């Protein structure tokens, strides 16, 4: 069903793109996840599995039932008197700053201070001897609310100019003039729903107070440094008093980038207050009500194009519901603008981005970080142009792809230097047999009145780097012990994506030792400080390079020791197969480590990396925000029941570029998993708020992520064997965390294609998520228009 076998190489890679050495032993191997055996045995320890300190308290937080209300008064006497309660804390009890907004977006109170701005907002916290006692106590609060009307829709927010951040504009050329002169012009709108992360492990923190106002926080976070800093600020202690440690998360997907701070801060505040360890674990419902999700977007577009479907000018208006606070919305909405082109050249382009404030939980990072939403806009445009000109949408997509030497400048004025989309499209069109299947589907649809099929091929071009340039740095710490075993630590966090094994592979490769000689350790702010979040697909790129730098520093020192011993030049010492060799002699890595120690050479080093080449003007939206681009393409074929809107995915073909893979097994897992998560976002995953602004889909009974049966039987996934990275990323690999999510867009467009087959001519109006309901209603509109 799935194939790791590569298609035969077609053309030679251009000589200008360097390859990595062909002699690698560990890097590039399909090695299992470092914790796989522990995980299948139930032995991998997540925070809730850790042995509990004997005097542990459990936290529970009272959440706002209202989307928008003023707190007139709060009587918590019954809460305090409730059995087992040890402490109750409100905004007034926070010794430091009552805010856990990320540094670039403050405005997220730990406990509401007089005003609640979303249903699910934290109002006060209770620590008790059991979770049942804490919950029972929290329910006994008497709170007098003055309920205010909530702002829930983009229309309401726009009408009231209710924004969390200033409106941004990105432009190149003269879109208005191009639109006015274009032979054809179309306007449209697409609405794209949000998405809950639905990591299987809910948010959790365990805070253990120590001496000298110290606090050790075990947090399920993608951003230990930010947890450390925000906890310190809330406790009013220096950063050095707080340690944040994260061994692994049970999934993150962006949902534990900024959102973990609130959970950690509440646990730490209650721990500091009681001087007892406090665990705060959200159950699924509270997690989904209380913590942020993917932004939903509304995209209005106005496009001018020629008779071949080539875009001449385009105007986009992006509006997203950011919820009640800024959080990471600046960068997320920026990234939506950066990906409004996807893989297409837009000669004259104007993009306006509104960041709407609504009375909902603050929308946050989610795999793709605005990029997927931006792409959904331009892909809707491609589809509309094709329907208008009665062309195959693939034809229109191919005609608009970026060029190699011309038509290669993005709306933010960055030259696309590494464009491989035309080759990947050609290869996938051939291997997926697109043309033949397109004909067969047309014939099928002629024969069948009630079930219709559709097919679509869509590209992904995704910019790799944090667009906030400062964040593109990383540190690592490597120790070699005198028995030759190695301990590795870096600032990246493991959430299942395989970062730890990839970075360990890099270190093993540098020392020429087997992977099992490298011990992977928990991420902690004690070992590597001031780190960036594990986000933006950057984990391997940044931490791999930092760990490589640390390993090389030690290796160079060891090489000098060996050179003296061997009587050769340090540059002639080779580390391979557990040995150092040079001058015709060899010794084991362990023996060399012992020797180095005996001659007083340090076997420990930090390593540091900062991504080169990046510069960006955030006000003009010009520059080079990305080190390189990752590419991919997918073809999906669906079958739709026109009486109910139900559908099934018949076949999927994926070709994805990871440069030269660090670990093809791990990368394949990211590609397949990303695709299915993207498909879920655009199909069955629907967030539904009631008229009072309460989320009503806050558990898996009502919020439907893909299940096993949603995966097609015919699922052909290939890592692009010709993939290279022209930039000097770690071992010439490419980032793979986020880009595959957007491969799921082909499913949405295959559904549009099937809907199109239900009528003749005109446009398809289908928003996301394309639930059976939206599909059926789109079919009805299509049939009624015909």
């Amino acid at each position, binding site marked *: 069903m799935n194939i790791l076998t590569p298609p035969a190489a077609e053309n030679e890679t251009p000589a200008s793109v360097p390859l990595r050495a062909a002699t690698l032993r560990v890097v590039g191997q399909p090695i299992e996840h470092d914790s*796989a055996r522990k995980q*299948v045995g139930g032995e991998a320890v997540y925070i809730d599995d850790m042995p509990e300190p004997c005097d542990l308290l459990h936290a529970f937080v009272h959440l706002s039932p209202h989307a928008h209300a003023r707190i007139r008064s709060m009587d918590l006497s019954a809460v305090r008197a409730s059995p087992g309660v040890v402490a109750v804390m409100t905004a007034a009890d926070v010794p430091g700053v009552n805010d856990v907004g990320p540094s670039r977006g403050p405005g997220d109170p730990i406990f509401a201070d007089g005003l609640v701005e979303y249903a699910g907002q934290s109002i006060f916290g209770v620590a008790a001897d059991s979770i049942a006692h804490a919950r029972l106590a929290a329910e006994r609060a008497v709170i007098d609310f003055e309920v205010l009307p909530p702002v829930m829709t983009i229309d309401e927010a726009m009408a009231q100019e209710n924004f969390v951040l200033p409106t941004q504009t990105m432009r190149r050329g003269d879109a208005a003039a191009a639109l006015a002169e274009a032979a054809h012009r179309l306007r449209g709108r697409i609405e794209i729903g949000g998405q809950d992360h639905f990591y299987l492990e809910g948010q959790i923190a365990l805070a253990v107070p120590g001496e000298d106002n110290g606090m050790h926080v075990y947090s399920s976070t993608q951003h230990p440094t930010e947890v450390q800093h925000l906890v310190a600020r809330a406790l009013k202690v220096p950063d050095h008093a707080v340690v944040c440690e994260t061994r692994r998360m049970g999934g993150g997907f962006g949902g534990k980038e900024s959102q973990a701070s609130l959970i950690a801060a509440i646990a730490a505040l209650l721990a500091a207050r009681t001087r007892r360890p406090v665990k705060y674990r959200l159950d699924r419902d509270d997690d989904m009500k209380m913590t942020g999700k993917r932004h939903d977007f509304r995209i209005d577009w106005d496009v001018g194009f020629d008779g071949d479907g080539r875009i001449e000018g385009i105007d986009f208006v992006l509006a997203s519901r950011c919820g009640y606070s800024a959080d990471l919305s600046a960068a997320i909405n920026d990234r939506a603008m950066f990906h409004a082109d996807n893989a297409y050249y837009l000669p004259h382009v104007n993009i306006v981005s509104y960041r709407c404030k609504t009375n909902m939980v603050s929308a946050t990072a989610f795999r793709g970080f605005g990029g997927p939403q931006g792409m959904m806009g331009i892909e809707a445009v491609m589809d509309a142009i094709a329907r208008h000109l009665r062309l195959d949408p693939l034809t229109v997509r191919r005609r608009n792809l970026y060029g190699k030497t011309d038509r290669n400048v993005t709306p933010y004025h960055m030259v696309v230097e590494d464009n491989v989309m035309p080759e990947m499209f050609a290869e996938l069109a051939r291997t997926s047999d697109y043309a033949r299947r397109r004909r067969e589907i047309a014939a099928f649809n002629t024969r*069948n009145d009630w079930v219709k099929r559709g097919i679509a091929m869509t590209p992904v071009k995704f910019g790799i780097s944090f667009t906030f340039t400062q964040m593109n740095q990383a540190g690592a710490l490597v120790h070699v012990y005198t028995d030759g075993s190695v301990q590795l630590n870096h600032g990246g966090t493991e959430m299942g994506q395989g970062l730890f094994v990839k970075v360990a592979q890099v270190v093993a490769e540098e020392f020429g030792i087997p992977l099992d000689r490298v011990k992977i350790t928990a991420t902690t702010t004690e070992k590597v400080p001031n780190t960036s979040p594990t986000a933006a697909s950057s984990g391997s790129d940044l931490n791999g390079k930092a760990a490589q730098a640390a390993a090389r520093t030690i290796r160079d020192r060891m090489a000098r020791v060996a050179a003296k011993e061997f009587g050769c030049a340090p540059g002639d010492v080779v580390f391979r197969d557990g040995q150092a060799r040079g001058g015709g002699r060899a010794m084991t890595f362990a023996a060399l480590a012992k020797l180095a120690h005996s001659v007083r050479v340090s076997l420990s080093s930090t390593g540091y990396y900062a991504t080169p080449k990046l510069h960006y003007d955030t006000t003009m939206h010009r520059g080079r925000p990305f080190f390189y681009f990752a590419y991919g393409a997918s073809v999906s074929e669906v079958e739709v029941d026109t009486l109910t809107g139900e559908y099934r995915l018949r076949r999927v073909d994926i070709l994805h570029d990871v440069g030269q893979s660090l670990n093809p097994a791990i990368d394949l897992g990211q590609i397949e998993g990303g695709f299915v998560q993207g498909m879920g976002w655009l199909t069955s995953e629907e967030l539904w708020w009631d008229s009072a602004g309460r989320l009503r889909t806050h558990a898996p009974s009502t919020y439907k992520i893909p299940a*096993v049966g949603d995966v097609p039987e015919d699922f052909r996934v290939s890592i692009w064997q010709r993939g290279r990275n022209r930039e000097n990323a770690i071992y010439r690999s490419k980032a793979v965390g986020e880009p595959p999510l957007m491969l799921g867009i082909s499913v949405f467009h295959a559904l549009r294609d099937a809907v199109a087959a239900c009528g003749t001519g005109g446009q398809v109006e289908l928003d996301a998520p394309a639930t059976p309901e939206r599909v059926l209603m789109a079919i009805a509109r299509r049939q009624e228009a015909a």
Partner: protein
Amino acid sequence: MRDTIRFLLGDEVRSISSVSPTRTVLEWLRGEARARGTKEGCAEGDCGACTVVLGEASDEGMVWRAVNACILFLPALDGRQLLTVEHLRGADGALHPVQQAMVAHHGSQCGFCTPGFVMSLFALYHAGTAPNRRAANEALAGNLCRCTGYRPILDAAREACAGVPADRFAASALEIAARLRGLADPEPLEIVAEGVRFVAPRTVAQLADAVLAHPDATILAGGTDVGLWVTKQHRALPTVIAVERVADFARVEERGGVLRIGAGATYEDALAAIERHWPDFARMTRRIGSRQIRNRGTIGGNVANASPIGDTPPALLALDATLVLRRGAAQRRLPAAEFFLGYRKTALAAGEFLEAIEVPLPAAGETFAIYKVSKRFEQDISAVCGAFRLRLHDGNVADIRIGFGGMAAIPKRATATEAALRGRPWTRENVTAAMAVLSDEFAPLTDMRASAAYRARVARNLLLRFWLETTSSAATLVRLPEWESAA
């Protein structure tokens, strides 16, 4: 009378007393038993992270079934073997074949869902039938994974579960069964702890007495809904009467032209008999909840619970089922259509309970279909569920019965639509006219599952689909093909 729960935890006999009988197995495992391999993902039986396996003695040895520990109350362990992910490695630490396959196929990324998948795979392994894709889907639909996209897990399932079970559990099945029989006795279980009185009678007469004595008691069958009252609504259940130990209460048998489904029969217990007579009903049943849920949930509970979105009531309405109700020694029979009075309100009197469901076997020439429409194909709650039973005579509708779920506050028959069709030719024109009647007959709600407009449109279209299926040639695709026949 016994007040101690006795079971095997792996190989070890355990006894539990003085613990609340509504404590969940998951809480007990992660708390008192200090076995934290089993995870909580949702506490409502929808994600499968808590999946464990319950073993029961059978004639041939052991039957191991996957269940959700998060909504399973402790007394359900009595007389059974509980296996968790910690029990699977061999004595030498070697991985079990299903664990090994998960590693080899890279089926575990973040790992939080993994113990649940491993246990579902363990149950599938012991089913001993090389699963095709549909069977694998059915075994795994109750386990959500957010990382892998499932393909590697499916590959692991096909590789590890392809042969005759040959692990140490299979080797010692007879011995385990004997040990379980040694724990068994005919005594009712009665536990009073932490403010909960729990009674598990062993005969129908004992059950009838208990219900009469405690008319306000919660009657517990599989607990796939009652479990959530505790884990989600944090309700206290002062008195619980469990039916799962009542002899013959789960019996499914054909007699006198009816299929009699004991109120304690789980979906899986009843599936084979349903399949024989109404393949479409069986197809739909396989989509109710998940394997874990169907291993515990009962059709009787689905009926007595009277949820407007339960999936078996529409079928039972269309099939003209009779419900056997019992109060003390007195039995009465009620047509299913007269059972549902209002939102979660039934015709059950105080002290009365559902004893069995009697479904008339299909008459010659009768056609039955049931359609479940939901956002997700598997393990989802219906937006609309429509069941149709038709008898034609000379091209005219001799009789038609239509039952709907999701269209009203109760599972409801479409009597006006039926009347509009009865006695008339079974033609597209008459069906189209009846679709308009159907629109007038129901005023569905808008909620998170579907809008009122969608529900109304789908309900009409399901009638059309039924007409198409009964009148079109087999070559005409009217609904999406089943997994086996999907290309």
